[in-house]
């Protein structure tokens, strides 16, 4: 019986996930590493794990990436 990836996703948790508070603390650094052309996922794996499963922090990340990438010019 193949229950597919959808239920997996619904119940997914990653032990490396650092949570929302820690993500907020480091999000500016994470974004600037990315804007510098480096890979923030290897430097902050726990934060990357969190962004994969938290839609709210993912939205903040996308917004901050856009803002830091050009709106302050």
């Amino acid at each position, binding site marked *: 019986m193949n229950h597919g990836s*959808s239920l997996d996703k619904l119940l997914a948790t*990653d032990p490396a996930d650092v*949570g929302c508070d820690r993500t907020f603390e480091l999000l*500016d650094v994470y974004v600037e590493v990315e804007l510098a052309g480096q890979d923030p996922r290897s430097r902050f794996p726990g934060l990357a794990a969190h962004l994969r499963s938290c839609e709210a922090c993912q939205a903040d990340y996308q917004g901050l990436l856009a*803002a830091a990438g050009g709106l302050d010019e």
Partner: protein
Amino acid sequence: MGRTLDAESRSWLQGLRAVGSEREATLARLHGLLLRVARHEAHRRSGSLQLRGPELDDLASQAADDALLAIAAKVDGFRGQSRFTTWAYKFVMFEVSTKLARHFWRTTTVPLDQQDWDRLPDLLGVQPHQHAEWHELLAALRRAVAEDLTDRQRKVFVAVALNNVPMDAVALELGSNRNAIYKMLFDARRKLRASLAANGHLPYAASRRP
């Protein structure tokens, strides 16, 4: 992880730590940047919320105002690990999220814990011809939600995972915060996965990472 502070960030800090007209001018200049970012962000996220025009501008303006207050209060917490403006924009993201959560409840009437289990097959992408195959598993999931979660975990799981209520809106409704709600959701998911695995419904999944 420290780095040398760039000249622009140093200038922002100097202006914010000044007194009188220099500080006022710095705050005004910063507010202008925050407002620009808040407008962009509010517009970017407004799609699913039927939010536009003056209401959207008002939300962005409140977000920029509150972000400025937070930044002024927390400026000594800036450790120079990024540019000052990138650090400051985080507070705009936070405030836009909070304001959108308030807006969500002004336009939504769905009770937080309404359990519409008939929607679950669609949510999981189950095709009509697979419903019989999934019936037992979904019944087990429903049982685990009812029996294995605390009241608060159940409320959060049903709202976020089943009813698609934004986490910030759940946090607002429960008088909590995003981090605490996420932790509850995390624990609920772990419990449910363990329960389904223990009952032979997800034999492969107990220790699987996403």
